[in-house]
């Protein structure tokens, strides 16, 4: 008696939408690498996945493919580690459930840090816009992360990213200031910032980290703020607080 073949193929296959998501993520990642990015890999519940992604990029299995900077962030406080490590232009890749509190926090902060984000997972999807690239498997089986399906997704991401390097003309976006969802030109409509210091001693304003660097921001409208809070910055002022988990 032979097992039915169709369900196995379907379970491991990739639908058109997921394949398009993967292609877009690979091109964005290649563009960031070409501009000097480091890839930060995090997987609080399955640390080996973070290590596997990092080693894939650092030491490719295909001889001749370039080594790219990728680091697994697996310590006890990945948000703090990412905060101090991530530089503008970098990429954060998470392998985690949509409910993972540390990954949720990191993904929200990524915009203030100037980082692009890729989120791999399964089950209930993260809310729209939670990451720049969401590579998601709908199957909610809690065992899915250990069946090779995530491994397939990040293997493909690596393979496609290297295909992009064969197209140097496409590695520089047409308008570098308007890449993806963080548009510097339009930034004055409201940019996400993370409070570094709530009140600078000789100034009274808060020192805030945004995608473009550090700046002093008037926080009068949203007082009190604490280090780590996320705020929306408009014309030098914080106009709203973005979440309650920053403290």
């Amino acid at each position, binding site marked *: 008696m032979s097992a039915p073949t169709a369900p196995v193929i379907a379970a491991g296959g990739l639908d058109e939408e997921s394949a398009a998501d993967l*292609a877009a993520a690979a091109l964005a990642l290649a563009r960031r690498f070409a501009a000097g990015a480091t890839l930060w890999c995090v997987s609080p519940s399955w640390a080996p996945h973070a290590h596997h992604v990092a080693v894939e990029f650092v030491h490719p299995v295909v001889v001749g493919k370039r080594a790219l900077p990728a680091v697994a962030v697996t310590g006890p406080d990945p948000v703090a580690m990412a905060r101090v490590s991530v530089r503008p232009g970098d990429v954060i890749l998470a392998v985690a459930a949509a409910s993972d509190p540390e990954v949720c926090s990191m993904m929200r902060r990524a915009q203030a840090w100037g980082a692009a984000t890729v989120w791999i997972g399964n089950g209930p999807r993260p809310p729209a816009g939670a990451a720049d690239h969401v590579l998601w498997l709908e199957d909610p089986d809690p065992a899915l992360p*250990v069946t*090779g399906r995530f491994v397939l997704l990040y293997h493909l991401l690596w393979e496609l990213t290297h295909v992009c390097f*064969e*197209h140097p003309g*496409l590695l520089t976006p047409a308008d570098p200031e308007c890449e993806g969802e963080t548009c510097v030109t339009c930034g004055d409509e409201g940019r996400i910032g993370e409070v570094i210091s709530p009140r600078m001693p000789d100034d009274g304003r808060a020192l805030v980290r945004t995608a473009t660097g550090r700046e002093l921001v008037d926080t009068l409208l949203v007082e009190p703020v604490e280090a780590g809070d996320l705020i929306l910055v408009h014309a030098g002022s914080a106009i709203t607080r973005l979440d309650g988990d920053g403290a």
Partner: protein
Amino acid sequence: MTPESTGFLYPFLEAEEHDATSLLADLAASARAKAAESAALQHSTLQECAGQIADAADMIAERFAAGGRMYTFGNGGSSTDAATLADLFSRPPHGRPLPAWSLAADQAVVTALGNDVGFDLVFSRQIIAHSGGHDMAVALSTSGNSADLTLALAEAKRRGLLTIGFAGYDGGRFATDDRVDFCFVVRSQSVHRIQESQALLGYRIWAAVQHRLAGGEGPG
């Protein structure tokens, strides 16, 4: 890459290429083809290995029931898959947690052994230190040839452990070494596709062991 060799595939290749639409379509098609290839390989691997999975699960379940522990190990990406497999046994999504850990996980031990006695012995020396007669050694490799893994499996066999090797290609030295009790071979030439099938093999073995420990019989 020269425009002559691939120009017919990518009409806008080279630095003047500005429209990513055709590249994105090409990448997506490539992703789907590779995913289908991976799934087909997983399916054929599971079919070919069904008997081995059942036999190995019988012996693993017996050893866990007798108080045995499982050590997993590999190099590079395979070391992370070995860690995932150990995590699956020790911290399962459901069922009974069982003692298993990755011998690559402790950087103090790995670097001490690598520096003092040589990298080929990083796992076998840990087998000597840890193992008891009911234990199990599981090596994950794509080539089946890595010296640190074959030496560890040989040491494990000498000490009465159950020895399991995961390999790709034609199975390499794992497949011909009679000190390897079970050799699971994923018949592919691609490291990535091999690892994807090995992950599913590991999961199926784990599921079959859980089934046996829960009192079930048969293929699980």
